[in-house]
């Protein structure tokens, strides 16, 4: 090809560069993408396989169980797993409610630009920087029924006051009670097959408090970031129109914060659906599985009982729950990219 007219000196490297500019980014991304394909998608696929296999002892058996979804059938008929799902929903709802209310309240108070604003903000967000294990360990002691919060209530004279009003002492058993408040199953006859009592396990309330302590600062910071973007002009315009402070918040600012609330619900919601560390350190499964959650179930079935297929099936249920929340969120973000 030597006699073909030589391309001009300029176009050759330019053309070369052009193709390398298309090729190099993909080449450089490939290792990361390969890792994610293996460690995320490949491993999830493998876990799905295990969840429909006969592997329920230390020796690996990857033959498919008969019927195919037999393990899932067994899982959903296990009382403990039914309790775990109930606990997850109760925890998620109560925790999201608490975190959003507390976070919004703190953000609105801090929005008033009072003295010492940054000190307050830093203290409220501080627990977010800690490990769930640290949180669990310290709150476990605070909720010890013999001491901790119950003792503080006693020392502050609150029980004396309650007694004077003819009320009993305030001394809940916190994490040590197996009591479940209410039973949805009694009202809804089609829930017959469910063996778990569909109510609120009271031992979950201390866990909700600890989680709110740790993560309400996140909600607060998100709201503060949102409040920062609501321009001064909007506030002033409303003020000039004669709206009072509270009405400006109720009618204008809080509705504008709606997208932030949705983001908070998605982020904290997916955290609470897969909660594990906090409960593991704070109360474990609890009395009568009152604080048991799928994360603990998976860990114990897989690593203690070596029932790999059952543990894998429960983990896939966790993944599906999280995906219901996260996939629409990611899909929406993708459209905006």
């Amino acid at each position, binding site marked *: 090809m030597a006699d073909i007219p030589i391309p001009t000196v300029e176009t050759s490297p330019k053309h070369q560069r052009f193709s390398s500019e298309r090729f190099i980014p993909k080449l450089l991304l490939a290792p990361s993408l390969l890792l994610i394909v293996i460690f995320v998608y490949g*491993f999830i696929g493998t876990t799905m396989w295990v969840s429909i296999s006969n592997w329920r002892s230390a020796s690996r058996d990857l033959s498919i169980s008969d019927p195919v979804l037999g393990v899932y059938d067994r899982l959903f008929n296990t009382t403990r797993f039914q309790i775990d799902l109930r606990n997850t929903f109760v925890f998620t709802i109560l925790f999201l409610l608490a975190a959003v209310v507390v976070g919004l309240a703190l953000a609105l108070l801090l929005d*008033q630009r009072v003295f010492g604003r940054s000190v307050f903000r830093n*203290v409220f967000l501080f*627990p977010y920087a*800690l490990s769930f294990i640290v949180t669990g360990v310290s709150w476990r002691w605070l909720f010890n029924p013999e001491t901790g919060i119950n003792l503080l209530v006693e020392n502050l004279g609150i029980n004396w006051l309650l007694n004077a009003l003819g009320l009993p002492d305030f001394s809940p058993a916190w994490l040590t009670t197996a009591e479940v408040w209410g039973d949805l199953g009694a009202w809804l006859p089609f829930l017959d097959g469910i063996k778990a009592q569909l109510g609120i396990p009271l031992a979950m309330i201390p866990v909700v408090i600890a989680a709110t302590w740790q993560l309400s600062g996140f909600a607060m910071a*998100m709201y503060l970031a949102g409040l920062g973007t609501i321009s001064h002009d909007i506030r002033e315009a409303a003020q000039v129109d004669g709206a009072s402070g509270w009405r400006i918040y109720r009618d204008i600012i809080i509705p504008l914060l709606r997208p932030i609330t949705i983001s908070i619900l998605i982020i904290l919601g997916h955290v609470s659906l897969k909660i594990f560390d906090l409960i593991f350190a704070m109360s474990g499964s609890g009395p009568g599985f009152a604080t048991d959650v799928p*994360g603990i179930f998976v860990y114990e079935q897989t690593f203690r009982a070596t029932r*790999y297929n059952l543990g894998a099936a429960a983990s896939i249920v*966790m993944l599906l729950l999280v995906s219901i929340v996260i996939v629409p969120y990611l899909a929406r973000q993708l459209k905006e990219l």
Partner: protein
Amino acid sequence: MATQRIDTTTDARRGRLANIAIIAILTVAMIVYLIPVYVMVITGFKAAADVSLSQMWRLPDTLDSGGYQQAWDRLSPNLATSFMLAIPATILSGFIGAVNGYLLSKWKFRGSDVLFTLLLFGMFIPYQSILIPLIQFLDYINLYGTLPGLILVHVVYGLPLTTLIFRNYFTNIPGEILEAARVDGAGVIGIFWRIMLPLSLPAFVVVGIFQFTNIWNDFLFGLVVITDPNDQPVTVALNNLSGGFAVEWNVLMAGAVIAALPTAIIYVLLGRFFVRGMLAGSMKG
């Protein structure tokens, strides 16, 4: 501040009263938030004999370093492990995330946004759903139970977050800078080294702090990937301290303080960057 002053004296007085009320509410809330911290710190300073249930809220009569001493003796190997884990894992996942973020923001190709979204999904999965194959895989490559194995795990599962933060950061850097460098003959890699990397120091600080905190605070991977209790990260060791029949609360609380201290110090000193990482990790840029 060219706003018209329409404040009357009564309005101003009402404003001042409202301010005082707000500060009062915030102060009460702050005390409530600090209760666990107070209890952890003072209990650690109590001698074992003083940790009676009825004395929980009292300051220790005499400062006893016994709790901290014992907790330190039992946790210091694990503390070292956590540092040897979190520092390299943070640097590696940060650097790879910087490259990914640069490519996915400045060198988009057909399908790159979809790939980015598929990558992001890895940040949200419950890790329980990958543990069985993960351990088999680590065993296969002879890294099960080892620190390098745990570092690898944190690097890989850290990539979605680090990539996200860097991608958002590089998106905001104007394309003209890149075009100018291209005209000068710089290629994909040259632009990254000579232009983007020097510009991305603030993003490295954010990613470094946030990712270090995440890895330090991890529990599940440390628990299942490392089998020898002496080699497990400090969060796992702290949880082990609370096992057994009689819990030594002064040692446990001192241990909690020790395990929390590195991330707490980072938060106090560099909180600004921490918040930025947190917000960047939860929202698009």
